[in-house]
């Protein structure tokens, strides 16, 4: 069994964590409420489903949070490489939001503090969302004083980004949302315990996603056959990347 595990991990060559099963939310810092994770996932699925048949269709918004030791560690994360590894958005219509947190003590109580935000847009998405527009949205939502609660600010930003995509990229007349309703939803779903839906995809799940390279699949084919013989069928990926790529366009902001 150990050799089996070694074989699986020996095939690993990705620089960054694989996306989670939820795909649209990758809360590696484990800082968001489940309600927020569910809402972002639901909105992500809706955006993809509603736009997939449109011209330049299949837009995807993916959010990831990372906890880092210090500011210099952020340099180890390249937003373009993560975007490309996760293949966000069909027709290069993807948008990736990275939130970096550092643990700080306030009154001897450790808190995770947002120290940097990065956004990367897919090649095709560039023509619909300019850096100026992205910066304006982030400043007016995540970096504004509108809400004290991080989840509220994050969701506010996601809603505004969705609004910009629906209206500017797909010609919708409006995108309606109500932050008061979301606040009530958040308060009525205060569960912050982590669930297994935000852990990285297992290697066996990963094999069936577009993120897996030919070498990965080749290296994993034997263990997968053994796994299936042992009765491990019924695997399904709920969400996955649309195959998109990006070229470095986007913005970043420091401390909230």
């Amino acid at each position: 069994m150990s050799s089996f595990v070694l074989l699986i991990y020996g095939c690993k060559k990705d620089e960054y964590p694989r996306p989670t099963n939820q795909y649209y939310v990758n809360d590696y810092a484990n800082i968001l409420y489940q309600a927020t994770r569910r809402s972002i996932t639901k909105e992500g699925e809706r955006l993809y489903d509603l736009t997939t048949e449109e011209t330049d269709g299949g837009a995807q918004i993916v959010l990831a949070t990372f906890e880092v030791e210090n500011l210099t560690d952020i340099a180890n994360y390249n937003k373009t490489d993560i975007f490309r590894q996760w293949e966000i958005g069909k027709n290069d219509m993807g948008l990736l939001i990275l939130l970096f947190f550092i643990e700080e003590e306030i009154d001897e109580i450790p808190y995770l503090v947002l120290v940097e935000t990065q956004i990367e847009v897919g090649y095709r998405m560039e023509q619909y969302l300019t850096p100026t527009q992205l910066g304006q949205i982030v400043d007016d939502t995540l970096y504004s004083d509108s809400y004290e609660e991080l989840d509220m600010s994050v969701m506010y930003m996601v809603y505004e980004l969705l609004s910009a995509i629906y209206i500017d990229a797909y010609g919708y007349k409006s995108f309606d949302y109500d932050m008061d309703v979301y606040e009530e939803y958040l308060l009525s779903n205060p569960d912050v315990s982590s669930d297994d839906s935000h852990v990285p995809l297992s290697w066996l799940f990963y094999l069936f996603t577009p993120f897996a390279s030919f070498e990965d699949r080749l290296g994993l084919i034997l263990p997968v056959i053994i796994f299936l013989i042992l009765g491990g069928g019924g695997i399904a990926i709920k969400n996955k990347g649309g195959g998109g790529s990006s070229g470095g366009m986007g913005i970043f902001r420091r401390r909230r």
Partner: protein
Amino acid sequence: MSKKYLGLGIVGFLVVLIALLLIFGYNGLVTLDTNIDGKYAEIENRLQERHDKIGQVLGAVNGLQEHAETIYNAITAARASYNDAETMEELIEADAAEALAFTDLLVVVEDNPMITATAGYQALIDEISSMESALSVARRDYNEAVQTYNASVRRFPRVLYASLFGFEKEVDFWKMNDGADEVPVIDFDE
């Protein structure tokens, strides 16, 4: 009789094998070469976007000419060198000149409250840093494509195909001066 057929069969097999090797070898080189062309075109696109944006930036930052004549002139000179660039070497020089002019511009803008007070300041920072980030990625992608090609074309048997079909033995990297291709770092700490 059977020996004659056996001999013909072997010769035929070898001819087919060699033909297949030549076809696959040639196609492999074409793929690598085309990939470089694609990445080079991406740099050109990004450079053109940046070049177009410089004009908008100069228009958006009111009072730049009065506050920083040197930077204004540097940007104007960088634009001129981009317009005149014909070879790859000249384009790399123009790229470096524009990158440095932008970096200097950011420093001047940051240090000058009269300029930072303008409405377009934050947008200017976002546009420049985003454009430089995209250019940095485009250069990296091009250099990776060149590295893959150069490494591949030196290996056997591709080295033979390269000579046979007249492919370049080595393609030049997009090499900037030290630090010139770094994305300007803008600190938003308050």
